[in-house]
């Protein structure tokens, strides 16, 4: 069965072609080169011509190298032994620990039957007011963090990994800078969160094909843990690198590019990964938070654009803050009615006032006359940005709501806030002078 083929017909980029019989689509093979062994997977069959993408890349592959087909698709080991470990994109350890081979499960499995999904009802607390109060993260949600390169998105992810109230964190790194990888590791080790974390990391210097495997392998493991009743949070960074590696392979395979060189199935490829976010009836859940850097701060770039159509909202990271405009958690309505009676009203009211603040700010910069109301708004906006929006603020939801009332009462009279009278009666802080 495991016949070895010793003649490689063509090598183009990371794709090699061999003449072989009886091979199944998506099967795995081992390619032995003078540099060692690499896995490869079948991506196209044409008569007896079998095209494979080589995980370690095509560089250094010789036409005389050996290809041995394994007769099964890509798999990953699944057990509690994964916890606290670090692997690369093809599931090999990169932390000097032992290789895991028990209980292999396939990756990129079938889609969940929509009839077996349930509506999300639980929030995930992160301790970040801009998330907890204004755009609550909900279990089983899929949300991207749209960011310009250079923003502290990885620090944000690391903080969420440390603080999020879930059972398990899976971190999928794609094209990570090596320093970023190390600082992720350090942060989690120092914070003592390593024992509930699994890393699948592809760094910028690793072969491209492995980058493509990271989401699949991370999500396959997450899905299994969820089926066992665990609440899993999958953090992916950065999905734009993933899309770029799809592009690279597609071009190598002579596919007709559709938009800025990306393959026509970019939407489907992204969706089949994001749609792994699920709340299983009677078991656990998978939540996905994925960084998508926007090349040139352009949200209409194909990667953020297609992502926006797939995900349930988005966080915009701009100037080191999560922007209240544009950011949206489509599922927050499902949870913020039960958290605290003032949550919804305060959230809407504060954002409306913040929008008014922005207008006043614009007016000021245009040199129009400032009214008393404008000045109040500017005070409010400054406090809001300092005490709630700043990413270093780290307080639980209830404290953040109290803080919100404090800011309101410091800047406005109760009628000016536009909030309902009953709420004001029960939440307005007793005595706080403007200072």
């Amino acid at each position, binding site marked *: 069965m495991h016949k070895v083929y010793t003649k490689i017909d063509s090598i183009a980029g990371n794709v090699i072609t061999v003449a072989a019989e*009886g091979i199944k689509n998506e099967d795995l093979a081992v390619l032995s080169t003078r540099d060692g062994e690499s896995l490869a997977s079948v991506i*196209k069959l044409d008569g007896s011509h079998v095209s494979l993408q080589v995980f370690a890349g095509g560089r250094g592959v010789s036409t005389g190298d050996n290809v041995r087909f394994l007769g099964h*698709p890509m798999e990953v080991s699944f057990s509690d032994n994964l916890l606290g470990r670090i692997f690369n994109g093809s599931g090999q350890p990169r932390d000097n620990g032992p290789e895991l081979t028990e209980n292999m499960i396939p990756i990129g499995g079938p889609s969940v039957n929509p009839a077996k*999904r349930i509506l999300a009802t639980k929030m995930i607390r992160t301790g970040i007011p801009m998330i907890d109060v204004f755009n609550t993260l909900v279990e089983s949600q899929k949300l991207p963090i749209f960011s310009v390169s250079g923003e502290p998105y990885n620090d944000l992810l690391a903080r969420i990994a440390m603080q999020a109230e879930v059972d398990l964190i899976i971190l999928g790194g794609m094209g990570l800078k090596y320093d970023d990888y190390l600082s992720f590791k350090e942060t989690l080790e120092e914070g003592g969160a390593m024992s509930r974390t699994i890393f699948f990391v592809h760094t910028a210097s690793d072969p491209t094909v492995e980058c493509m495997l990271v989401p699949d392998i991370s999500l396959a493991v997450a899905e299994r843990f969820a*089926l066992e009743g665990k609440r899993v949070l999958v953090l992916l960074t950065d999905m734009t690198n993933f899309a770029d590696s799809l592009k690279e392979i597609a071009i190598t395979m002579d596919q007709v590019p*559709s938009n800025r060189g990306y393959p026509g199935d970019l939407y489907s490829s992204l969706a089949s990964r994001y749609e792994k976010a699920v709340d299983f009836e009677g078991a656990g859940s998978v939540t996905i938070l994925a960084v998508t850097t926007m090349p040139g701060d352009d949200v209409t770039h194909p990667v953020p654009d297609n992502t926006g159509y797939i995900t349930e909202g988005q966080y915009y990271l701009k100037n080191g803050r999560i922007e209240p405009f544009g950011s*949206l958690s*489509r599922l927050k309505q499902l949870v913020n009615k039960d958290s605290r009676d003032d949550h919804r009203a305060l959230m809407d009211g504060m954002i409306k006032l913040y929008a008014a603040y922005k207008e006043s700010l614009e007016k000021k910069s245009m040199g129009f006359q400032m009214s008393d109301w404008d000045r109040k708004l500017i005070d409010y906006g400054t406090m809001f940005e300092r005490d709630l929006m700043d990413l270093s603020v780290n307080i639980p939801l209830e404290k953040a709501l109290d803080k919100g009332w404090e800011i309101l009462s410091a800047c406005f009279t109760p009628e000016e806030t536009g909030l309902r009278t009953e709420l004001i009666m029960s939440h307005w802080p007793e005595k706080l002078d403007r200072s």
Partner: protein
Amino acid sequence: MAMSKGRVVGINGNMVSVEVDGDVTLNEVAYILLGETRVKSEVIRIRGDIVSMQAFEMTGGIGVGDAVEFTGEMLSVELGPGLLGQVYDGLQNPLPELAEKCGFFLERGVYIQALPRTKWDFTPSVKKGDVVRPAAMIGEVPEGIFNHKIMVPFSLRSGSYTVEKIVKKGKYFNDDEIAVLTDSDGNSHSLTMNFTWPVKKAIDLYEERLKPVDPMITKVRLIDTFLPVAKGGTYCIPGPFGAGKTVLQQITSRHAEVDIVIIAACGERAGEVVETLKEFPELIDPRTGKTLMERTIIICNTSSMPVAAREASVYTGVTLAEYYRQMGLDVLLLADSTSRWAQAMREMSGRLEEIPGEESFPAYLESVIANFYERAGLVRLYDGSVGSVTIGGTVSPAGGNFEEPVTQATLKVVGAFHGLSRERSDARKYPAIDPLDSWSKYQGVIDLKMTDYARKILFRGDEVSQMMKVVGEEGTSLEDYIIYLKAEMLDAVYLQQNSFDPVDGAVGVDRQKYVFTKIFVILGSEYSVETKEAARHLFNQIRQKLVDWNGCEWKGKQFAMMEKDLEELLQKRLVSIDSEVEKYIER
């Protein structure tokens, strides 16, 4: 005719090349045999003895040499009683039954009978010796809120048939023989309540197509008053992500005044389908007193399900719609989103190595989209009754740019365009349909001259607001400023609607006419205000009263009280009413 057989010679993504011996038909269904598993596929190109097929499932594990069985049938759906309330995937597999059989995941190669085998209470309407034509009614069974007409199968194409045998009134399974017909050549045809029809072929068994005239009420003010959709018409909703396309469709699927709603969720998020799935069985349809689910069919091929079945899902949807139209019912098909379907075509076209058109979409994109929307229509059936299929499709243009091929191809063939704007949704102005850019060719519930008058004020108000950004409030004349305030008020109290509010969420026609007339008078009135502050204050008051009025139950006590309140406020400041406006009011 013996069915052809073949074997796999190549695989590229979800395209499988097969070498075939014997005859094959374009668009015929074939199965790739993988041991016990049968993978459904459709023939999309034939070149000599090499056939290209799109597989409706994942192609992992298929190898060169695997056997292929052709069926000789085009991709078809099963039609008969029991369709209402079902949740299907794109190939008409009932998803709840699949879940029972396979658990959490959609397993490959599992296909389930679309219609449950249940007993139906059949009442015949023909007798032995009667002559019937295809699509004629031969009996009926009660299905939920309707009497489901059992018809002569549409696939019997030769003119007329004589009823040889018809069963007596009683309970029968849907696959029991209920009648035997003979054609003019003496061949007999056995009929059950079910029959099949190929999805890509429009059902054309009617006397004539009529011009869509009557508005289809959606209970969304902005649509019914300004951008109406006719029964039997078509409309599209393009919009950038997050602008509320799906929410708008969900609202329409709830409140639309039609007999049946078919939701084709094509390549979109699963979570949204789940919302509908869990909520509809609990929501009561005020028109029938039964749950909304009883008038709904959901076809869902979410974004993570195999791509080829996406194309099938919109066709499955429209075929089911046409089937119920044949019973003289008004059916609304909501397709969300047609862009995903177009992308599926693009993917396949790429694999077939066809020469790409604009943005790599295939050159035939426009004609395929046109053909799909043309399946909507108002028709007079052979028995004189009238039925309609209305199609509303969302479009998800890349980058929110309406210049792209799918939006443009759609705009050419639809009767109404509801373009969503990012600006409006960012400002939380819902529904985020752009009232200035959007258009409709249909007649709405309110006199066109009146709505035109209101639209003119919207346009003028927009101009003034643009100008004000440059010259500031200081540099704007009081007259212009009042027009701006009127436009703002119209937007806030009429165009925007709170879909979460139990009263404001769905506004009937009578109320729309009544409230619009009131606002129309305000738009055409001159009030005594000396300064901009006074004007702003007055219109803030009017707006507040109208918003509160919107929240009062139609014709309730509160409603009358608020109205009186508003009238008092208006009368106090009224100077004169535009003569043009007065003319319409008197009529």
